[in-house]
């Protein structure tokens, strides 16, 4: 059966060039980058090379990059590393679980948390209004993993700066896909496996001078902020992936925007189909649709039976039977969130695959509507 992967926001395949770069670091160049001998120093050298490549992509300096194992860890480090009881934290109502749940944890620990609402298109509202005397950190997702909407981080960063508050952004979905400059950002989370690098490598950008409390204590690696033996192969892969993403960003961006807009244009011709989130300021690879009268999980399964991989924010796909909080934050009713479908493209997605997807989508929606009481 034909297989079409359209869930690149979940994870991406490792770029062959990245994989090749990683290969020697398993059995040949296995030194611990913290060791003094030549084995260790060889690893140390490539470690710092990778750090530079990641830093370059966001116009940071390399000593501001702290390698971690995942975006989840980076977000945890940023929030838990900065906040203590009595502090005030501002996040948005469309954060990824790893920020939302960390904020919920901190709330139980005595941190005050405000979740900013978003407008119908998915942009955060009322930031200035919600700043308090004890606000220490604003953490707003750069590009939504679900609806792909890109926040104006420069504007948010300027507000934070004006009020002498730190600004962290989870850029797991946008890093390497759209240009980012950390000028107005104090902390930023980026991940390797979303940009054709391996899983198990990520980073937290921490602007010079900002003091964090580490989550782990140990051998002092990463300026003491993230002690653990370096996962050198994954970090090398991350660095190579960042380098490629920087060089090929424009090409990949244009390719994906073309396919994205084709899907949106064709899908919106289907009766009862709508686009979730703003249609302009969104990731080049994200399409989030909703269909009235049918259920997202059923649509995902139907597409899967035809070899197509996509995802949904429907309640039926979640263990808690609750629709996606991100979609509800847009003001959608639960039954509207019920019919949602997320399609995320990648640099390897072809127009032929999109044509096949559109054909099967049309057929699947039609079939499910025939079964549904609401046509």
């Amino acid at each position, binding site marked *: 059966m034909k297989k079409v992967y359209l869930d690149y926001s979940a994870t991406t395949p490792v770029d062959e060039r990245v994989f090749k770069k990683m290969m020697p670091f398993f059995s040949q160049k296995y030194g611990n980058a913290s060791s003094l001998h030549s084995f260790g120093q060889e690893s140390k050298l490539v470690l710092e090379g990778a750090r530079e490549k990641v830093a370059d992509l966001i116009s940071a300096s390399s000593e501001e990059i702290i390698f971690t194992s995942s975006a989840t860890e980076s977000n945890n480090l940023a929030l838990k590393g900065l906040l203590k009881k009595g502090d005030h934290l501002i996040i948005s109502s469309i954060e990824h679980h790893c920020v939302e749940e960390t904020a919920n944890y901190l709330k139980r620990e005595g941190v005050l948390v405000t979740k900013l609402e978003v407008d119908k298109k998915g942009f955060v509202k009322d930031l200035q209004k919600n700043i308090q005397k004890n606000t220490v950190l604003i953490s707003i997702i750069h590009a939504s993993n679900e609806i792909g909407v890109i926040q104006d981080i420069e504007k948010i960063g300027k507000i934070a700066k004006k009020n002498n508050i730190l600004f962290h952004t989870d850029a797991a979905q946008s890093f390497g896909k759209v240009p980012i400059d950390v000028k107005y950002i104090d902390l930023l989370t980026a991940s390797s496996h979303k940009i054709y690098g391996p899983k198990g490598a990520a980073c937290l950008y921490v602007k010079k001078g900002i003091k964090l409390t580490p989550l782990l204590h140990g051998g002092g690696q990463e300026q003491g902020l993230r002690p653990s033996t370096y996962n050198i192969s994954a970090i090398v892969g991350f660095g190579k992936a960042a380098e490629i993403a920087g060089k090929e960003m424009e090409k990949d961006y244009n390719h994906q925007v073309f396919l994205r807009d084709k899907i949106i244009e064709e899908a919106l011709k289907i009766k009862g189909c709508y686009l979730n989130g703003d249609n302009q300021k969104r990731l080049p690879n994200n399409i989030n649709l909703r269909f009235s009268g049918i259920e997202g*999980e059923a649509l995902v399964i*139907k597409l899967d*039976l035809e070899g197509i991989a996509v995802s949904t924010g429907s309640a039926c796909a979640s263990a808690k*039977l609750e629709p996606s909080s991100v979609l509800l934050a847009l003001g959608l009713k639960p039954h509207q969130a019920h019919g949602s479908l997320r399609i995320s493209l990648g640099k390897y997605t072809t127009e032929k695959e999109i044509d096949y997807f559109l054909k099967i989508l049309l057929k699947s929606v039609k079939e499910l509507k*025939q*079964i*549904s009481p609401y046509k």
Partner: protein
Amino acid sequence: MSYNEKIINHFKNPKNYGKMKNPSAVGKLDNKNCGDVMWIYLKIKEDIIEDISFETLGCAVAIANSSLLTTMVKGKTIKEALKIKDKDLIKEFGQVPKVKLHCSFLAVKALKKAINNYYEKGSSSYVGRSR
């Protein structure tokens, strides 16, 4: 989520779906929790369910349950149909993911609603009315 072949078959090729012309009764179930909607149509003659169809807005397992239920009910007497429990549907499927067990309950509830609707419309001999 991976479903077994029986669930997938009923989902892929659902039996007895679609609106029924001149049904004897209709049961409309709207589940507020998960958002699923199930409508069951019945054609009843002398206490025998001669025909049954469904319309469902729901996940793959909800659709599969609706389909399976109709195949189990068709031709049965009302009394026999009322004996069908959610566990019978689950047993027929074999393996159902825990979070999807309630879908079978919804299907049975929709059928009961339809049978209730039949009695509400005409006969009053039915005493085992359930909510």
